[in-house]
């Protein structure tokens, strides 16, 4: 668990981060979102002390980060930046091995870990371990950047616009991969982005920042249903709101008793996808199947729409 308490940073007269407090639970993804210059990167970099706070403190599992030597602190926290920052003079394997080497792991353990991570990120070790970063595509470089950050099994991963340099198609795949890997490893992630879509896609919790201040901190559903008037409301996007709510809810949340004709929809898919299926096939209802394929009920357009409605 990370506790950020009254954290501030100013450069001379300029206040870049202004009295921000928030708590990040173990094993969750917290997304800090806001426009450029809001102070997101500075907030993130105060967690691993790349920026020294002017006031306030950061606790990791109850321990004040100021009490840990800074290099040691950073060995324990994964760090991924936009454009990945891979070492051009080291191979993929050499890049991934960076922190384990700093920690003095033996060669065999490092080699095993590198192979394990390459496989986790769907990069064939035989093909990629010996390549240099400039021989990789943007998406592959980005994956190596995340693999490198995870090499020493950090409990916390900081990501600063990690997908910012990717094409939209690759970006969405990279986001899904991050989710899968994060769920599997249980790593706590704090991710910075200016892309609201990305925030909704990835964030268990979303922190909205503007002009150095934390405006609102809550779950995606809270932000959608009760956005703070003004900046947050505009950022959340009023027109998109119902659809975003639908993507947050699962078919399982809206399943009703009864039967229906046609191809069943999966109980774990989201309501937005289910609705688009119903629109496409031109049917008001569809059967719902669980993971084993057994029919557990049905879903209807009306039932779905109720989930996208403004709460009263």
């Amino acid at each position: 668990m990370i506790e950020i308490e009254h954290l501030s940073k100013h450069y001379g007269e300029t206040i870049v981060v202004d009295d921000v407090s928030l708590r990040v639970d173990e094993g969750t993804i917290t997304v800090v979102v806001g426009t450029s210059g809001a102070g997101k990167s500075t907030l993130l970099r105060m967690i691993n002390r790349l920026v020294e706070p002017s006031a306030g403190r950061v606790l990791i599992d109850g321990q004040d980060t100021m009490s840990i030597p800074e290099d040691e602190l950073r060995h324990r926290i994964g760090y991924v930046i936009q454009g990945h920052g891979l070492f051009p003079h080291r191979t993929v394997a050499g890049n991934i091995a960076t922190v384990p080497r700093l920690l003095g792991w033996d060669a065999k353990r490092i080699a095993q870990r590198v192979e394990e991570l390459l496989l986790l990120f769907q990069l064939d070790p035989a093909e990629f371990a010996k390549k240099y970063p400039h021989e990789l595509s943007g998406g592959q470089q980005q994956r190596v950047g995340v693999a490198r950050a995870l090499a020493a099994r950090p409990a916390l991963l900081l990501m600063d616009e990690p997908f910012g340099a990717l094409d939209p198609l690759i970006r969405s795949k990279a986001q899904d991969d991050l989710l899968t890997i994060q769920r599997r490893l249980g790593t706590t992630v704090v991710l910075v982005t200016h892309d609201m879509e990305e925030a909704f896609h990835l964030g268990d919790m979303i922190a909205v920042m503007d002009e150095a201040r934390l405006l609102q901190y809550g779950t995606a559903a809270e932000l959608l249903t009760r956005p703070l008037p003004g900046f947050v409301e505009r950022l959340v996007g009023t027109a998109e709101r119902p659809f975003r709510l639908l993507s947050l809810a699962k078919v399982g949340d809206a399943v009703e008793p009864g039967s229906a004709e046609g191809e069943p929809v999966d109980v774990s898919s989201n309501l937005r996808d289910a609705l688009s299926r119903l629109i496409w096939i031109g049917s008001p209802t569809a059967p719902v199947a669980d993971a084993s394929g057994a029919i557990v009920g049905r879903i209807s357009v009306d039932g779905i729409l109720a989930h996208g409605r403004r709460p009263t």
Partner: protein
Amino acid sequence: MKMSAASLRIAAFVLLVAFVSAPQLFAFVFEPLTENGAPAIYNQGSLLSLTLAHLRTVFGAVVASTIVAVLLGIFVTRPAGMEFLPLSRSIVNIGQTFPPVAVLAVAVPIVGFGEAPTLIALFLYGLLPIFENTLSGLTQVPPLVLDAAKGMGMSPRQRLLGVELPLALPVILAGIRLSAIINLGTATIGSTVAAKGLGEVIIAGLQSNNVAFILQGGLVVALLAALLHDGLMTLERTIASRLGRSM
């Protein structure tokens, strides 16, 4: 293309080795240049030992310049040394603008004749290219890469040795190459203060009005320079291409 470059390289090397170890074999080439039955091939010492002495002087001077210039370049790019950057620049520049002949004139009364004043002159003359290239190499390291290194908990020393210097290496090597090539030619003036080297051959030619001698001395220096340039250039390219840069 690649093939012919390689064979040219080998040919130049073979020619150089053959000429300095058995110069008499080439007497027929230089005979037309002599007058009044003067010797066609330098006969006051072994060309081979003069060449080796010449190379030794240049090597010593370049090693010394490299050590000092690279250390200085590292120092003035650290937070603690930044304020000394303008000062070091001026000092190193003076080393380059002060003519090596004048350095010899100043150094001889202090350190005596022989190799020492030549080493001093070459050392000072070779500092600038290495220093400037060390600076530009170190300041060209992408900030993102340094940020990542810092974020992963590399200490300033680990960043310098593990990231900054390896990335600056091709540029630093180019500076060393420049300095070595300049010094190969400049080292010939060492013979005026009794340092052993290929300058002897040229000076002997000038004194006895023997064009053949002058040409031989010049030719060996030129071949050495070409081979050294080529070798170091290849090394720089190899390292740079690994970094994904083209030169």
